[in-house]
């Protein structure tokens, strides 16, 4: 580990510090989240965040960026993502222009060697998110979103960045990070990630929050909600999650629901009101019917 890396570390004093500063930007963490973010900073390792959809995985990266005052660089993964989209690409149009311009300039242009040296220069390099994060001189947070969507082979592209914080460009040499960015990778677990990738990361599973934490999240994120309603919302959602549903309500859906109830001017919900707005929480008709039957005690 070189010295400048050690210097740039220590964004946080303790896990408690992480927790409080995240809370200040309206992100309520728990022990696991706070400790892992803290360690990611101390050990200078990327964090692999896994968990069901809508539990705040991406939001975590955004919030960390916000509280450290860093710029968020986001790489959205998809099938078919390749080097030229993730790492870097030579701007060949500009290179062509450069070659032509040198010929137009006058009879005796510069020699081939000069041109070659010239066109494989940083000026002709298009930095894609990974390289951009490495080259950045201002503080950045790199978010590699839904990393499970790329093919197994493409993962290998990221390994150098994730472990060494550098990118090797054959024509140019190695670009090393001047400061170690915080890196978050999110995964919805639609496939096993490779051992190589997992080994380089700290692992954080963000599941559904406990009922107390969920209530706090609702209170923080939905302005103007009565504490009674927040409590009810959190408890109803917990009951829903304990049912055998095809898709359990996520935190973001809980927030949408709470928001709706506030807009409707409710201070508390009774079972009919809850049943009538269930479609915000649940996305399958069979789930809605089952939940309605269980909550109101009426059979379909």
């Amino acid at each position, binding site marked *: 580990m070189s010295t400048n890396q050690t210097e740039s570390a220590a964004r946080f004093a303790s896990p408690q510090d992480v927790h409080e500063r995240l809370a200040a930007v309206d992100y309520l963490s728990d022990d696991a989240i706070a*400790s892992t973010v*803290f360690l990611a900073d101390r*050990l200078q390792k990327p964090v692999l965040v896994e968990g069901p959809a809508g539990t705040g995985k991406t939001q975590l990266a955004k919030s960390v960026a916000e509280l450290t005052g860093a710029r968020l660089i986001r790489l959205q993964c998809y099938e078919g993502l390749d080097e030229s989209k993730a790492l870097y690409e030579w701007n060949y149009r500009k290179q062509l222009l450069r070659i032509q311009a040198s010929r137009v300039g006058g009879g005796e242009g510069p020699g081939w060697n000069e041109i070659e040296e010239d066109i494989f220069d940083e000026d002709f390099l298009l930095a894609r998110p990974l390289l951009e994060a490495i080259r950045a001189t201002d503080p950045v947070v790199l978010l590699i979103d839904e990393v499970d969507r790329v093919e197994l082979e493409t993962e290998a592209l990221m390994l150098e960045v994730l472990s060494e914080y550098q990118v090797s460009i054959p024509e140019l040499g190695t670009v090393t990070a001047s400061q170690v960015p915080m890196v978050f990778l999110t995964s919805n*677990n639609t496939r096993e990630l490779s051992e190589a990738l997992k*080994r380089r*990361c*700290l692992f954080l599973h963000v599941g559904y929050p406990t009922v107390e934490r969920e209530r706090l999240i609702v209170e923080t994120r939905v302005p103007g909600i009565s504490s009674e309603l927040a409590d009810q919302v959190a408890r109803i959602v917990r009951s829903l999650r304990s049912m055998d549903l095809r898709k359990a309500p996520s935190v973001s859906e809980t927030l949408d629901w709470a928001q709706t109830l506030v807009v409707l001017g409710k201070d508390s919900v*009774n*079972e009919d009101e809850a049943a009538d707005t269930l479609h915000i929480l649940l996305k399958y008709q069979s789930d809605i019917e089952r939940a309605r039957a269980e909550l109101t*005690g009426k059979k379909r």
Partner: protein
Amino acid sequence: MLDVLNAFIVELRHAGIPVSLTEHVDAAHATAAIDLGDRATFKAALRATLVKSEDHRPAFDTAFEVYFAGREALEADDLAEEGEEADEDSPDGEGSTGLRGAGKSMGKGGGSTMSAEELAQLLERALTTNDAELRARVAKEAVGRYAGMEPGRPVGGTYYLYRTLRNLELDRVAEDLLAKQRAANGDMGTLEERLATDEIGARIDGMKQAIEAEIRRRLVEDRGAEALARSVRKPLPEDIDVMHATRDEIATLERALQPLSRKLAVRLTRKRRHGRKGPLDFRQTVRRSLSTGGVPIDPRYKHPRPAKPEMVVIADISGSVASFARFTLHLVYAISSQFSKVRSFVFVDGIDEVTRFFDEADDPTDAIARINTEADVVWVDGHSDYGHAFEQFHARYGEEINSRTSVLILGDARNNYHASESWVIADLQAKARHVYWLNPEPSSYWGSGDSIVGEYARFCDRVVEVRTLRQLEQFVGELA
């Protein structure tokens, strides 16, 4: 510290969690970076560095509790003392008078002076207030009183847990609490009722966990972490032997099945799309060649559309292999989009087609529940008779097997010494594309006793031992 960590990691590896050297080093770095007195952080740090899959988490938790249980107890005692002091200082002593009394009596008497009634009261208070410290105290008392632990016995503690819980009668306590809430709030709506029940259920679960932790702590004191870890070690979900799974393990398996089948489906779709190149796409190639002056530099290929196989699943659902058949059917239907058609049949000594259940239900789980109650599979006495079931299958559906069909037979081939009628399988093999047999028994048992898998195996393309989800996933993955 490093020694303890080392032992802990050895235990994790024994439990089946792959921990690499890099991760070990990371964990050591992590412990250096954090405050070791903070147990939650310590645990989170180890988890973040050592466990890279949510499925492995229960195994990690168990090992962690065993190896670091002593520390928790120590801290709990400290906390308890602090708590008492705080209680006396606090001006608002009204609600906690009883609590303080109970706490003191325990503190002095070393934990055995409490009567059964006092304990019951304390338990109720712990559940009403949902206070972690009080909960730990109740657990301590209850285990001391009821578990009847004998030093030196090489057990994992399940029996102690059972004894403690039986004596505490948590179910009755829950009922009482609910009744009290009902009385206090007057008439509760169904929603309130449901919420209250869930709340109490969650608290009771918390109580059970506290008791379990307490038992574990005492066992560690008695026999040392390493010995205990061996007896409480549980297999990872994908390694559970389906045929001999306990009820808890079945529940674990069911939870593991959903993500597993989803992953499998995604993987297969991708494989299908990316597997091979199809024939040359002439039109696209010519179009592309326009930008290179008509020279076809960049040939384009059509997407391949390999024919999807038809699938016929014939499953033994007699008692011994029922859960195995259930998981396999579930998995096959979860990836049914990979097949052009799936038909399923179940048998014990008679056979019945159950495809319709899957067509009607939008969730395989529902369909499987209906199979157990509605399928007509008993012919004489409800003991497996492979021969008769196969004969019936051949008579009724034999005509529909053709060269596009893959036949999948699930069962242990324990035929209760009936005739094997293996000619049916021979005939199926002649007609169908493939005949596979999945056997949930370890292959060393095949052919012993009334197992006649060998007789059928002659006519199968493959006979595979499938005892765990891992093996099942692997087989199904190769199939599609």
